């Protein structure tokens, strides 16, 4: 988080009115990785790059390249919910 990001110590005079947020895409700044109690493990040998895991991730923690091929989990934001493992038809994700 940047220094001028609002937080729970920000006094009322410094908060934007109405809870307005004047920048876009800043959900990324909120690291949910430390919520994780189980961790997904990606098994590339089993993965067919079908892409089903990408849209179900609530934290957008599965990066993919321009060809739609996924890579390793972003563990800064993955909160370990396991939806990706459940949806994978090829058992290419295991929760550990």
């Amino acid at each position: 988080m940047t220094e001028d990001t609002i937080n729970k110590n920000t006094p009322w005079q410094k908060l934007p009115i109405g809870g307005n947020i004047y920048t876009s895409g800043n959900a990324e700044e909120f690291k949910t990785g430390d919520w994780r109690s189980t961790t997904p493990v990606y098994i590339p040998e089993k993965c067919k790059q079908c892409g089903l895991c990408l849209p179900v991730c609530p934290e957008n923690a599965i990066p993919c390249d321009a060809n739609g091929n996924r890579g390793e989990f972003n563990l800064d934001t993955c909160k370990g919910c396991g939806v990706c493992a459940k949806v994978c038809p090829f058992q290419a994700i295991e929760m550990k």
Partner: protein
Amino acid sequence: MGIRERLSGNEAAAYAMKQINPDVVAAFPITPSTEIPQYFSMYVDNGEVDTEFVPVESEHSAMSACIGAEAAGARAMTATSANGLSLMWEMIYIASSLRLPIVLSLVNRAVSGPLNIHNDHSDAMGVRDAGWIMLFSENNQEAYDNILMAHRIAEHKDVQLPLMVCQDGFITSHSIENIELEDTDKVKAFVGTYKPEHYLLNADEPMAVGPLDLQAFLFEHKKQQAEAMRNAKRVVKEVSEDFERTFGRHYEFFERYYMDDAELVVVAMNSTAGTAKAAINELRSQGIRAGLIKVRMFRPFPAEEIAEALKNASAIAVLDKSDSLNGCGGALYEDVVSAMFTSNIHVPTVNYVYGIGGRDTTTDHIKTVFTDLRMIADTKDIGNPYRYLGLREE
């Protein structure tokens, strides 16, 4: 000098809206405010305004559409009454907490039930703590003038709060009376254009409106609303002074009628204040030092100023056109009494609940209040402070 005309209160409100020509009007008809969107939709049809008129399917949707429009960066207006306001209730709070300066014409009517379409202030009193600026209007002229001032107050950068202009259903909304209208070009110049600093349709600044606001933040945001409401006092004063410079009609937080030497004082809002003036004229001709405080700005409540204005009275009656059903008194009464108490002013003060559901209130009724006040002033005995005026009793 304005243009001499005769209009009903609803016509006056619709005419003000036409002159303002807001970006969006979203409304659903309900008696007795129906004529406002009805006349306004005629202006849309005739091409006299270029407003986007949204004929929504409910008042909840009307306020929702105004919220969406205002957040997008548009100037939005609507009108409603009684149960229409009740259906808006959820969105009334959203509008003020998102700091959207929507302007609403509230044509006051009893909230059912049992079913009643006539005037009292129970609709307005139901939202008195909802974070809206509330201006009350004695007649068609004041409804018109308050609407002309509304956007300047609501949109001010130190305020950014929604504002409702109240007038009495049927009593003024459907009564044809003389009025001074102003030239449309002058009105437009006075009202100005809406230039919000942040708005959703600004492609250069993507923004989020109304996000989750939990324990760590809602308290601070409410404090900001409270501060904006305090600022509104200053802005109402400034805009009213500019209005007088521009159009010549004088407005304050409240009107003082024969208050210089008033001994017995009635505090009232909307059309009853006019009836009280007629009663006071009669009493003054008999040498009775009667006076009136007519509250125009109910939210924010001008507590210190009202207490100061009442400090030399011998007895005071506050007239509430809505029964708070709390066992101890109406909303205006409680505000006036606590204002005086906080300023360490102790004048015997009683409350009259009156005019419920359109019960007619005459100069004779008001004169009986002054008779009661005479006795209270002489005996220093308040008796029952929570009284009724015009109620049938055994």
